[in-house]
């Protein structure tokens, strides 16, 4: 029997299958010291133990049987099971905008992988049309799978390839681009893409899902429909993130790529604009902008692409009792840039001073951001801040720490000159630093406060 017939089985489990001449997709009757079982042998997850055989019962349930307890297996038949998303050819309507969907992996569209028991991406216009037919009401869709990586595995190679593919898409004349992306590092990619693809004439919309599309309550379909609306019909020609607004199925929010952050490990409404208000709301009625300082859609095909990227940049999340040898080690290893997330207005402890001075004197570019996420680095306020600036540390205003990291990679890819790097870092491309923080840019409600409870009770969130 072929290797595929033992898929995922090792050790005792595999030996049991071999002993009785059965394999994956065999219909079997199993005799064991724990009684009789009847079902279909399924592949085993490679991360599971080697001591059990997985059986799918007629009821659809799966169970595991201890391989050691098995005294006999009779094969009663074989089934060839194929997992397939129903495919339907995506209809083309000349009156609808053309949208290019670029896939990077993640769970925007996915199916189950028997090998790992996890969900893997599945992706083509016809597959998508089969599972989200509403897309055809919104746009003509073309898809292209760029990578098949989970978002934590996105890196410089992917960023550059993505930026170049977006540029090519713009040149091809599409009306909007949607990028399917895992959510964990979506805001990192959104930031770097904002720096690499400047002044695009069309919307570039990043989208993902917090509940995978293999479940009925998934946010994937609604996010995808909203993203297609934004890309095909929206007037915001910027890199934006399009994800659930509230946890309820109500509307999506469009976030500027440089001001957005994933704020909860599992909530649907995890993406929030930090220190500012979002760009727009989007639902089946279209895109409703919340501000007017966005770059509008243009008819031309001009775009500035700058894919510079320096990889030797790191990030220091300061904690009390941080020791200087950490900083020394970073310098010794040849890093050229450090983004510090400091406490409060942008502070670190005194014992680090000498190490930081050694770093800046060695030509390492050091920028300060705030762990509080909301608010500015205002290092002139306290003595500590002034001292730290004396060390050659540059405050990065209200740039989010992850955004500052991405921007420093990009800036150091272009120059090693201290003043030039500072100029690049502190000249906003797209609101990564802002002059003003609106009074409603910081809203973190507290439960149980009467007026918040009233809000939760009367307005679904």
């Amino acid at each position, binding site marked *: 029997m072929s290797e595929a017939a033992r898929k995922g089985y090792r050790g005792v489990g595999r030996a049991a299958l071999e002993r009785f001449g059965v394999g994956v997709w065999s219909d079997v009757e199993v005799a064991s010291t724990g009684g009789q079982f009847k079902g279909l042998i399924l592949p085993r997850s490679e991360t599971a133990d080697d001591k059990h055989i997985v059986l799918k019962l007629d009821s659809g*349930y799966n169970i595991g049987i201890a391989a050691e307890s098995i005294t006999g297996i009779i094969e009663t038949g074989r089934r060839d099971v194929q997992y397939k998303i129903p495919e339907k050819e995506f209809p083309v309507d000349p009156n609808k905008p053309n949208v290019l969907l670029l896939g990077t992996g993640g769970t925007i569209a996915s199916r*189950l992988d028997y090998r790992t028991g996890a969900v893997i991406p599945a992706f083509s216009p016809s597959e998508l049309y089969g599972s989200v037919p509403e897309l055809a009401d919104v746009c003509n869709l073309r898809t292209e799978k760029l990578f098949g990586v989970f978002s934590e595995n996105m890196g410089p190679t992917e960023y550059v390839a993505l930026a170049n593919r977006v540029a090519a898409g713009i040149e091809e004349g599409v009306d909007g681009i949607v990028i399917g992306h895992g959510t964990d590092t979506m805001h990192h990619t959104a930031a770097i893409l904002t720096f690499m693809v400047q002044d695009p004439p069309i919307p570039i919309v990043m989208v993902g899902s917090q*509940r995978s599309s293999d479940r009925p309550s998934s946010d994937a379909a609604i996010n995808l429909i909203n993203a297609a609306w934004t890309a095909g019909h929206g007037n915001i020609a910027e890199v934006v993130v399009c994800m659930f607004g509230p946890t309820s199925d109500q509307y999506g929010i469009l976030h500027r790529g440089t001001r957005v952050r994933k704020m909860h490990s599992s909530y649907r409404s995890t993406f929030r604009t930090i220190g500012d208000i979002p760009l727009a709301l989007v639902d089946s009625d279209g895109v409703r902008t919340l501000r007017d300082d966005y770059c509008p859609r243009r008819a031309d095909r001009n775009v500035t692409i700058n894919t510079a990227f320096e990889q030797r940049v790191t990030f220091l999340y300061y904690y009390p009792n941080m020791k200087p040898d950490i900083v020394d080690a970073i310098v010794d290893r040849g890093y050229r840039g450090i983004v510090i997330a400091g406490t409060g207005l942008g502070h670190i402890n005194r014992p680090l001073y000498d190490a930081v001075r050694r770093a800046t004197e060695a030509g390492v570019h050091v920028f300060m951001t705030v762990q509080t996420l909301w608010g500015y680095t205002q290092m002139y306020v306290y003595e500590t801040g002034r001292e730290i600036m004396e060390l050659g540390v540059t405050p990065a205003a209200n740039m989010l720490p992850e955004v500052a990291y991405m921007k420093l990679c990009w800036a150091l890819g272009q120059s090693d000159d201290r003043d030039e790097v500072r100029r690049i870092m502190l000249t906003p491309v797209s609101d990564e630093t802002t002059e003003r923080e609106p009074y409603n840019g910081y809203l973190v409600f507290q439960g149980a406060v009467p007026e918040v409870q009233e809000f939760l009770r009367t307005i679904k969130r």
Partner: protein
Amino acid sequence: MTDAFKPFDQMTPEDYAAIGLRCGLEVHQQLLTGRKLFCRCPAGRFGDEYDAEVLRHMRPTLSELGEYDGTALMERKTKKNIHYRIHHATVCTYEIDDTPPFFPDQSAIDIALEISLLLGLNIVGEMHIARKQYLDGSIPAGFQRTAILGVTGSIPYKDRTIGIRQLSLEEDSCREVSDVGHERVLLTDRLGMPLIEVVTEPDMRTPDEMAEVCQIVRMLCRSTGKVRTGYGAARQDVNVSVNGGTRIEIKGVPQIPRIPLLVYNEARRQCALLAIRDELAKRSITADTIRWKSQDVTRIVARTHYQPIREAVDAGHVVKCVVLDGFADLLNETTQEHTAFAKEFSDRVRVIACLTRQPNIIHSDASSETLAVRDWKELHRRTKSGEGDALILVWGSEPDTETACHEIAIRATEATRGVPADTRQALKDGTNGFERVLPGAERMYPDTDLPPMVIEEARLARIRAQLPELVWEREARYRKLSMPEETIAALCARGRADLFDRLTNDLGVDTTFAAVILTQWLKALRRRGLDPSDLRDDDLFAVFEAHARGELGREGVRLVIARALATPTEVDQGVSGVAAELREIAGNAMDDREIENRIDHVISAADGALFPDVVTKHRFLMGRLVRQFAGRVDGARVDTMLAAALDIGKGGARRELRA
């Protein structure tokens, strides 16, 4: 066609055998755990209060084997807005599907394994959590997490055995508040409670057998003392089929006595649907030859006085007419008690097209109380239909009536095949209504959030060592003790049977007295608003020990239990509370002289009061004394001494009473 089915009360087992009735049960039982199954929310707190709402929609997904589930597709047509009411005390982010599951509650697994062993099931080596899709919104995730713990067991019944197919451990679903039009409102307090589902083979042959087997399974669960009781804590689904019919699942029957009539009505419905199929075949109408059409008839009926359509037209809605060629005179056929075939269509329109306001259809077989005769004539003329055709009218919004027309055609086509595979809901009058298309194995999907969990042999051995006696064996044993029959079932069900055995075997307490206290007295206290589940077996044992030592009379046992329950004690102070009570009694143990003093006292206190006779006087004084002694002295002893003091002799009062 004539309705040849006998009324419910005249049906015999032979009648059911003749139609080939087969039925099975799915018994759901909440487990008594401290927390919910997949999160750390407290279990067993229920209430209608809520402090926030979440809105969701459900989309069908593909199963592991790549098929869309039929139910899933049906639910998609309904396009419901599902509103979840949530209260911070009972729900966390897990229930509203914003957080992945935590590892399942281990005590729930233990209890489920214990019941699996009692049912003689083969226990799985590894528990695989599955997602069972529910697109009706009853679970915010769109699926229920569930896992099989055992398969293929049996329980004895009469002179045969009833097969148990499987036992699964799962999370409970939401409670429905309302379902009107496209808006469904659900409460989430019950959501996530650990629940087991015991599925029997279709081995029952009559409605009564269903009720009896259900009772056995329920008793078996309760005999562990580790399951929840009370309304909704145990619910069953009833599966019914007849020869030539289809396995139909009737969901959510809370009370066992309601099962027989439900089974009868479903058997009757299936027979009626098969007869209708045969009649259609006689008329040469099959799934291949069936012909139907629908058209907008709003203008034709625009001036009707029939109120429901009048209101619809006034509200700007449309009226559509479905013509079913050759279906005349079938829609009034009786399918269940007081229910006609037309309801099959009305139900589909209600559930799938969301036209929930009743009546939602009218038809040409029951034309008299709806449209005027000339309206029906005009409808026949304008739809080019004849006397042999049936017309069904629906009204509502354009998309909903469109869905309704299609569903009516689908249901009519199914009528040519017999009994469609539905999941049905139990109605209060013993009939059932359409709930959704019967889901298949396709709706099962492995849960990718949690890895398989090994059921260790050591764990099974530990549970096996502590299994309660099998409930049917225990019942047989108690019957031999000639205890009151009503106490036998209650003892086994309330989980105090082990205590009962200790009391009667170790302490030699009278069996009937022990049984009555452990069942009827505790029940009486519950009715007074006390919670006897607060009393641990050891507390009660201590009370009976005092009784066995002669320190506490029978009345005393009752009073001490009542007082121990009524006296607020610190958590976990149950035993010491009772112990304190007992110490007080021991300290106040009265000798005959003290009792005589008390008797003299009450007699002199009542001096001057007029009694019609000495018996009344005796009864009055006895009442006073019982209250004073509060159970510290055996009532019979006081009775005798009082009688002596009143000089009516031992038992004199009773003798006079009889006279």
